[in-house]
């Protein structure tokens, strides 16, 4: 495919910058989701430990105290689940944008005969 009009190869640099920025934004959004996921896994582990703990610790723990502790952890888990939903909803369009600009950058680089991965 040839161009019937003059091109400005410098435009590819501008696109590359946009691609880098959108990739960084997408990466940050994914990092946030991973971090929330990690925190929720820790809470789930604590809940599991509490239920599985048949040792003296549990026996020593008053059932009211145990229920309170469980309720607190479940609440924390729910909050983190909600937070993850919100983070995912925010991350989806960011990721979509990054993929879109990535695809466009690739086709423009290939059109100019430039390695898109360079």
């Amino acid at each position, binding site marked *: 495919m040839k161009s019937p009009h*003059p091109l400005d190869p410098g435009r590819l640099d501008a696109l590359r910058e946009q691609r880098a920025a959108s990739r960084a934004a997408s990466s940050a959004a994914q990092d946030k989701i991973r971090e929330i996921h990690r925190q929720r896994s820790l809470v789930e582990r604590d809940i599991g430990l509490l239920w599985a703990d048949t040792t003296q610790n549990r026996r020593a723990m008053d059932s009211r105290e145990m229920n309170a502790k469980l309720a607190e952890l479940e609440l924390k888990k729910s909050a983190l689940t909600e937070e993850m939903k919100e983070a995912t909803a925010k991350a989806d369009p960011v990721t979509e944008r990054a993929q879109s600009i990535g695809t466009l950058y690739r086709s423009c680089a290939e059109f100019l005969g430039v390695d898109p991965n360079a």
Partner: protein
Amino acid sequence: MREMTASIAKTLSNARSVSNVIGDSLAQIRSQIDDLKFRRDEIEALPVAAEVAVDRAEKWAEREVAQARQAAPTPSYFSVSQKMWAEVYMPNCEPGAILLAYMGEAFVESVKMQVKAAYGDDRGTTEKQRLGLLAQNDAEILAAELAEEAIVRHAERQGFKIDRRRDADPRAVLAHESALP
């Protein structure tokens, strides 16, 4: 303070109206691009020229007849040995192949006539005409994409962040400023 607030409000209002104008213009040009791409599919799907259609149909019919004549090469295929005669007539070969083998020429002519009748007064589209229409359509799509790119760059200069389409034409995205409308 009141003046400053009014000034900020006016700036915001202006920014909103600029943003709306950019958004509307982009939506309009993108819709035009979609229409033009749809038109391209229509051009590609236009019926071929009548003589090409007749030629293709004739070749197909002749192939079918040739295959049938391999399956039923002699008139004896109409009959079976006397020992085989039972209450019903049962030829050695399926009737379609026999018909094609012995009435092949009439079948080919009939197919050609049917195709011509289907075209009627319409002569279809020659390959040259199709290529011409596609070239014209390509030029129109590129012009629309250049207009779109001009809007995007104008918006970027105004500080608005506009996402380009992922399937935008590289010739438009990489166009020199002098090429933009």
